[in-house]
């Protein structure tokens, strides 16, 4: 674990370059109390059929291996945490999933909860040769939550790792993925979408380490921020010496809907091999006034026109999800969340 939730001395601060824009120590201040987890789980925010459901209370990943075995390739991990009124309830633990050669898994993770809690969880995922993991994450946490979700992903040649993270933010929320890219035909895609409002903070940090030849990576992250919300995107693509033939592309696009909302972006390239194609793009702005004018000149009122444009901006990320049922469910979730979002 990168730090210990129950030991304030280990908490990262903005003096740590990796946590420059997300100062955990400043946010937490008081050490959370390690408590028995409540298993009193609410009904899920979205409906999905055909998936084997496994509940993760707090950060307790026990029984994960059995759940993967029973899932028949489609597993829904429902993370649930519940806070208390008298203190910040803290949870911290690790889980692990190993995919054997050629194995396929669609992993759907939801992060939900209630009240004032702090969770630090870590998932270790390993993909053997030719394995395929599609990971779809929906972070639907309360605005009172503190949530740091870290994962390390180890790939092998010809493996495929696909990650799509959708977030609506929390008081302090960070989703961090470290991928060791094996190259030799392995492919990685790490996308993300966020809709942040009120005083939420979402930090999406990705680290990609190309260690061998011929690795492919693509990243598309898009999102909307409004009110006093803040989004942080930190993406690093590292190409090690000898990892020739690497093709890596990263794109981050943010729309700020009102003054007061903030975007912090740090897309990095760190290249030690010469025969590579690497690129990143980053844009920050508001809705295109010309497009808005076009829609309104065709008879749409402003709210509808704005809604349409925002939808058109964010939906392509979700549409890239491969699993049909999952894509439909996440689209429905985003549409429901976006309902109250567009009216600025």
């Amino acid at each position, binding site marked *: 674990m990168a730090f210990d939730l129950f030991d304030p001395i280990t908490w990262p601060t903005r003096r740590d370059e990796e946590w420059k824009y997300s100062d955990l120590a400043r946010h937490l201040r008081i050490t959370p109390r390690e408590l028995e987890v409540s298993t009193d789980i609410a009904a899920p925010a979205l409906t999905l059929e055909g998936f084997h459901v496994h509940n993760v209370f707090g950060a307790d990943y026990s029984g994960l291996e059995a759940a993967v075995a029973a899932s028949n390739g489609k597993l829904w991990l429902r993370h649930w945490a519940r806070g208390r009124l008298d203190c910040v309830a803290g949870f911290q633990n690790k889980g692990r999933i190993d995919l054997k050669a050629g194995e396929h898994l669609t992993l759907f993770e939801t992060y939900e909860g209630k009240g004032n809690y702090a969770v630090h969880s870590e998932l270790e995922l390993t993909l053997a040769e030719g394995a395929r993991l599609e990971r779809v994450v929906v972070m639907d946490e309360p605005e009172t939550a503190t949530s740091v979700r870290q994962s390390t992903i180890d790939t092998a040649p010809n493996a495929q790792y696909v990650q799509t993270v959708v977030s609506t933010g929390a008081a302090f929320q960070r989703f961090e993925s470290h991928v060791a890219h094996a190259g030799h035909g392995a492919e990685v895609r790490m996308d993300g979408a966020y809709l942040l409002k009120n005083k939420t903070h979402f930090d999406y940090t990705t680290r990609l380490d190309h260690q061998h030849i011929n690795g492919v990576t693509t990243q598309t992250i898009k999102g909307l921020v409004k009110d006093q919300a803040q989004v942080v995107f930190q993406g690093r693509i590292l190409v090690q010496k000898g990892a020739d033939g690497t093709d890596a592309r990263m794109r981050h696009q943010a729309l700020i809907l009102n003054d007061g*909302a903030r975007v912090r972006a740090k897309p990095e*390239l760190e*290249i030690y091999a010469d025969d*590579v194609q690497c*690129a*990143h793009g980053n844009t920050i702005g508001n809705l295109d006034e010309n497009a808005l004018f076009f829609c309104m000149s065709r008879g749409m009122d402003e709210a509808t026109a704005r809604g349409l444009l925002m939808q058109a901006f964010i939906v392509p990320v979700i549409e890239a999800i491969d699993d049909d049922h999952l894509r439909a469910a996440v689209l429905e979730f985003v549409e429901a969340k976006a309902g109250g979002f567009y009216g600025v």
Partner: protein
Amino acid sequence: MAAVKETIDTVQKLETYEHGFVSDIEMEFAPKGLNADIVRFISEKKNEPEWMLQWRLDAFERWQSMDEPDWAKLNYKRVDYQDLYYYAAPKQKVAPKSLDEIDPELLRTYEKLGIPLKEQMVLAGVEGAPKYAVDAVFDSVSVVTTFKDELKKSGVIFCSISEALREYPELVRKYLGTVVPQSDNYFAALNSAVFSDGSFVYIPPGVRCPMELSTYFRINASETGQFERTLIIADKGAYVSYLEGCTAPMRDENQLHAAVVELVVLEDAEIKYSTVQNWYPGDAEGKGGIYNFVTKRADCREPRAKVSWTQVETGSAITWKYPSCILRGDDSVGEFYSIAVTNGHQQADTGTKMIHLGKNTRSRIISKGISAGKSSNTYRGLVSAHARAAGARNFTQCDSLLIGKTCAAHTVPYVEADTAKAQFEHEATTTRLSEDQLFYAMQRGLSQEEAVALLVNGFVRDVLQELPMEFAVEAQKLVAISLEGSVG
């Protein structure tokens, strides 16, 4: 193809670092080491007013409480600040009244470097060539400034900063340290305490400076650090184009160069600042070379001010340099055009900061990094928009080119937006020299070296175009020379 041919000829002519010679000149040194007495010594040598000494001592005190920054992607042996001479000047009995009284060896040095110190020598043999004024800084002092009288006719002040402190103290006092405060960073604090010379420029309201101004920095003495300070003020509606160049002898010790450049741009004024940095980069094994730790910043204080930084960085063992623009005035504009070439064991961590504070401020960043050999080249930049900066606009493009298997190229941009009315675009690419293009050029009869020179010059063209013409030609050659032996 003429340009390519010329480049190749130059490359072949110059087997090593062209400016690596040492001039044998009688020098005067301050005692080695750094303490408050040395600061007093420097101030006294320059006959500075009391407030200036206090200002220096204040900076020295702050420097002592600071730590050397370590966040850059640079790996070097730390400087022993007590093992340096902080003041080294050519010995002179009386102040020279004309060039004839200057040590002829010193004049020969500049002749060898191709710097015209005699006004009639300016671009000799070229009839009707544009004039440019030169301030020549040799180790710790400015030896001569040309065309001073002609510039004075239009009201332009161009002299060394020591002279400005004596002749125009109120002007210096008003602006010095207002862009880069004494405690800004470790190297700026050090510079504030011990800076010995540099250039001072003041362009009065409404004046377009009649010629290009330039400063030429030369490190000659060993075991010395050069700490120069440049202050340029463009008053309302003024315009100036300024160029600096730098070289040093080849030595197997690392020498420190910690400079501060402050630009103050007032309403409707414009400063174009170009740098061709060619400090000695060290030998093929990475031994020796200059540590170039520089703080450069421009403050667009009033509406419609404009600053344009253009830099060609080919020298130095270590480069730590981020020319920045504070866009405070509404509608002000900042530009940054950069070529950074690293070869051998050179390391460069360079970029810019565009801080948008005023409304409708615009900025553009074009950065081209080329790394070859065992070198490492990092672009590090910040673009930020304050909540009040409605209508702020930035476009950033940073491209890196890798030549060879053992070099590294990094891009570390920071983008921070606090307003919905800003529009920021950033794009970056990293590739190697295209095999197809190389093949095409060679198949048309160019040798491999010629083909590389051609492609590299194409890669950096956007930036070269921003340089004043004569320097663009020089820079083009310099880029080719710096990459010599990097292919094959």
